């Protein structure tokens, strides 16, 4: 048996203990399997495919119905649909991708196994948050929205780059909200079904709730998709200031979810 003294010993302590190894494993699950290209393909088809279909199909349909649309009208319709579909679709996608991340490991016992090694509970949670955020950002938003930007700027060369980027920024915050919510419910819950029920209720039920209580627009992410298209069409500096409030608050909610998750995971019994 070769002695341990010959090795470079991992000496990280505190909340970062094991983080590097856990991140390596979590990133490997995204990038060293076929998961990355399947996700990329799905979101390219969903977002860019849908956008192309809309930009080609809607004007044709309008001409056939005898009420042709102007380029500006087509652009505006496509913009609303792009951010509407993206925020709902990516919201559902991120929930499905992350719903089993924490609860699955808690129930199967792999979490207890990992935490019996030199790894901290906070590192276990953060590795999932960081890896899923990074991978989601690139595969579900970054690459498809590069394509969407090319398509939309081709349709309207005067489209504001800053406005588009700001809207994508709001979409990232929207997605991050559901990702952090999904992980948090996974930390707190004891059953898989609870994670899916709570997060889906937040995403789908939130839209319905906002139709009843309009003020929710200002405190929740439920109306962010409408704000995203307004940011692009009017420019980030021209939209009413109060429309930035839900963007900021959605980010704040995510931070609260992260802090609650960390608080709870340090107290969990495995």
């Amino acid at each position, binding site marked *: 048996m*070769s*002695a341990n003294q010959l*090795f*470079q010993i*991992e000496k990280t302590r505190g909340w970062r203990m094991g983080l590097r190894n856990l991140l390596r494993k979590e990133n490997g*699950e995204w990038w060293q399997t076929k998961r990355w290209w399947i996700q990329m393909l799905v979101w390219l088809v969903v977002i860019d495919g849908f956008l192309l279909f809309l930009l080609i199909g809607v004007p044709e349909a309008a001409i056939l119905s005898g009420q042709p649309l102007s380029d500006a009208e087509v652009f505006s319709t496509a913009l609303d649909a792009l951010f509407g579909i993206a925020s709902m679709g990516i919201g559902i996608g991120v929930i499905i991708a992350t719903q089993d991340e924490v609860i699955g490991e808690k129930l199967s016992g*792999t979490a*207890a196994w990992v935490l019996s090694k*030199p790894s901290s509970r906070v590192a276990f949670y953060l590795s999932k948050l960081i890896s899923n955020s990074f991978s989601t950002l690139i595969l579900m938003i970054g690459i498809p929205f590069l394509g969407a930007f090319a398509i939309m700027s081709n349709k309207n060369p005067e489209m504001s780059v800053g406005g588009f980027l700001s809207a994508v920024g709001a979409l990232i915050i929207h997605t991050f909200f559901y990702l952090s919510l999904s992980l948090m419910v996974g930390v707190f819950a004891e059953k898989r079904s609870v994670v899916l029920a709570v997060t889906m209720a937040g995403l789908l039920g939130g839209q319905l709730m906002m139709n009843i209580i309009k003020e929710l627009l200002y405190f929740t992410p439920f109306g962010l998709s409408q704000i995203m298209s307004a940011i692009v069409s009017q420019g980030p500096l021209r939209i009413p200031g109060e429309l930035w409030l839900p963007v900021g608050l959605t980010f704040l909610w995510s931070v609260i979810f992260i802090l609650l998750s960390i608080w709870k995971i340090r107290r969990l019994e495995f």
Partner: protein
Amino acid sequence: MDQTKPVIQTQNLSKSFGNFHALKSLNLTVPANSIVGFLGPNGAGKSTTIKLLLGLSKPTMGAGSIFGMDIEKENQDIRRRVGYLAQNPNFYEHMTARQIMDFTARFFFKGPDNLIQARIDETLNLVGLENKANRPVRGFSGGERQRLGIAQAQVNYPDLLILDEPAAALDPQGRRDVLEVMEKLRKHTTIFFSTHILDDVQRVSDHVIILNHGELIAQGSVEELLSTGTGLNYKLVLKGDSTRVQKHLQSLAWVQEVILGHQNGKTALTIMVEDEISAEQFLLREVLSDENIRVLEFNRNKQNLEEFFLNLVEGA
């Protein structure tokens, strides 16, 4: 590591879940360089104790230490020196055995890569999984998972190996393999393993700790525990007329009682004695002095662990 100090020590370690007291004031001691069987029926509190020792759960009361370090406050340092195999171990199913080992090893070592890979090979060889190193874990049998579990627990050459039911749910061959691996590791590390399979404990353990309903009911070396409560008695199986021998033995001062029995047409005598030295020195000679008698078997009766355990648990 100080060889004289206990590796694990607990003081009134307790754990409750609401009104259910899973562990009640446990005071256990695990000596260094030993294999300690942690025995108890299902639900006795064995896994709860192990989770408390590893910091996966927090005690309601009491304290404990491993290598002299507090299990609550110095848990990170403890886990650097411990290997753990959970009951029904679950690993990431898509990973190969080698990837599981690499993932585990990198919690302990940053490099160099060649040494880490050599250690992984060595440990997989130890448990006989070298030919399955590159297969995903999802295709592994129960025994292979268990052996992989032992390999990953051993990858950092821990000073203490904690195994929770390492041979449960295995077929006899799987059990034999796991016990053989434990035997191989005996000279390198202290092993603390929970089980409800008494044969396994008797086969490999130096020490036994018995838990029932969350309470410690016995602890000590296997020899010590088995020699308590049985009295001193010897068994003889004879062929021929044993009447004279029986009478002769009964007349000896150090013999308490001779119980006559029959075994497949032969005579079986159980001889209860008061003086171990006299018995060891003279008992067989006294019997053999009768030339009409043939001795087929002679041995000292010992309580086996199963009897001892059942007496304790049922008595409790």
